[in-house]
């Protein structure tokens, strides 16, 4: 790098190029979803017919319903378990390396390995696979992310207010709901939104743990089978909706996390 790099202009050019690289492909999809012909060959006028086509496609609607069921259950379970785990880990006297590794592993283990491990496990148990096995599997990484978001908040948490509440005669239960929980709430919601997004978008593990049959196909599995062999105009509309939902959830999650930085 040279001296001029730290100057304003080159930095701006770099940012423009990188953000262009990151966002142009997405922008093209969004734009195409409103193209009447649905194809990138030509612009044949603004239209929402591909969104209409989505509503008429029962496969997609069922997949969307399945995804919602999986994401809601996985989010609720992982938010409870992840928050408790964060509290348990941050209130330990000594850091446990085993516990740290266990909480970190779901974020780094290759998806494909976890996917085949779960497939092997469920079939060894003789468990019929379906939406419930996808929920069980999604909770694994969802809870790790919730745990890490809540722990980040707990690192700045002043435990002396808990002691104060106890000294003033509040029970442990009251102290938790009246003191600890309100402070942690923004990070718990942020973690839950992150878990929801991850669950809605997850493909590989769902693909391996959904079992045979079409009844438990989730949205990403449906998208995969649609894009496998090229461009399908309906996917552009579906992609736009899915990305819109994720981006909204993340903006809210980020905003909640921002608030907590000022205690």
């Amino acid at each position: 790098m040279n001296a001029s790099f730290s100057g304003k202009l080159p930095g701006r050019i770099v940012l423009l190029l990188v953000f262009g690289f990151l966002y142009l492909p997405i922008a093209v999809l969004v734009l195409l979803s409103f193209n009447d012909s649905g194809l990138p060959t030509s612009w044949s006028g603004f239209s929402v017919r591909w969104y209409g086509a989505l509503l008429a496609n029962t496969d997609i609607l069922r997949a969307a319903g399945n995804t919602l069921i999986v994401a809601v259950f996985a989010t609720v379970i992982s938010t409870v378990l992840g928050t408790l785990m964060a509290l348990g880990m941050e209130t330990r006297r000594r850091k446990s390396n085993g516990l740290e590794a266990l909480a970190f592993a779901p974020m780094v283990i290759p998806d494909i390995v976890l996917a085949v491990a779960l497939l092997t496990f469920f079939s060894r148990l003789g468990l019929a696979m379906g939406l419930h096995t996808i929920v069980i599997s999604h909770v694994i990484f969802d809870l790790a992310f919730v745990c890490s978001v809540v722990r980040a908040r707990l690192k700045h948490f002043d435990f002396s207010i808990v002691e104060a509440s106890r000294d003033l005669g509040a029970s442990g239960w009251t102290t938790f709901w009246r003191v600890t929980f309100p402070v942690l709430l923004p990070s718990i919601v942020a973690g839950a939104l992150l878990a929801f997004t991850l669950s809605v978008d997850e493909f590989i593990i769902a693909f391996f743990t959904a079992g045979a049959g079409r009844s438990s196909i989730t949205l990403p599995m449906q998208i995969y089978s649609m894009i496998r062999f090229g461009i399908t105009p309906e996917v552009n509309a579906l992609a736009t909706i899915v990305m819109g939902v994720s981006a909204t959830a993340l903006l809210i999650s980020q905003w909640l996390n921002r608030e907590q930085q000022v205690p």
Partner: protein
Amino acid sequence: MSFNATRPNLLAAPGVAWLVAFMVVPCVLVLSYAFFQRGVWGGVEYTFTLENFARVLDPLYAKIFLNSARIALTATVVAILIAYPAAYAISRAPRMSQPILLFFAVLPFWSNYLIRTYAWIVLLNREGLINNLLRWLGYTGEPLSMLYTESAVITGLVYNYLPFVILAIYSTLSRLNPELMEASRDLGAGPVRTFLRVTLPLTLPGVAAGGVFVFVLSIGNFVTPALLGGGRFQMVGNLVYDQFLTANDWPFGAALGAALILTMIVLLLLQARATAHASGESKGEASQ
């Protein structure tokens, strides 16, 4: 639910139980399959063997492993080369706008992986946007076949994992003490030398963290090679997929999975060592 820091608590127990039951046990189970023989009709026959590991080293499969490693390494290097200037530019932006720039750099990372990959099918297809743009610009030759090539696979990997590398490098750059660079300048080093001898070595932990992440996720990836490589490029991820869902050779698939996990662990340990080394170095420099 009070917090008595001197007493062990069981709050983490349900989460730990979940992870042990549904992550540790299944992983141990599948890895143990690698030591058994394949059953005649698929499935597993419980006779101890090391044959599956020998097969991983067989030239045919070792070649796929090395090829995946090469593609993953290329993606890693390209991602770092793009992410470093980007992270540097963000760290030099006004303080107020840094979190916003960072948020928008990372946002695509949390959106659907399949959709981000599909976007490149739309761009690179023979009937796709880039070929149409070329035609519009007056190009009259055959449409370019950019999809289903190794470059397409690498582009997809770089595109998908770039945000994380930017984040990792930015986090080390933002913690850098600007006085160190000033000191280097005052002592007569030019900007290039200051960058190479001071800034770069101190930010290597971020580069290593981002790099390991891209490499590990790329080498085990099966979606990108399937979609952008059109199934023409076998990578370890695809190989594992095939053993479990088409070839029905679970023990061999398990051995391949073990090789993937081993690669990941070795790289994470190396990264941890590099980080420890670099932080030791920076402390030394700061005290001088």
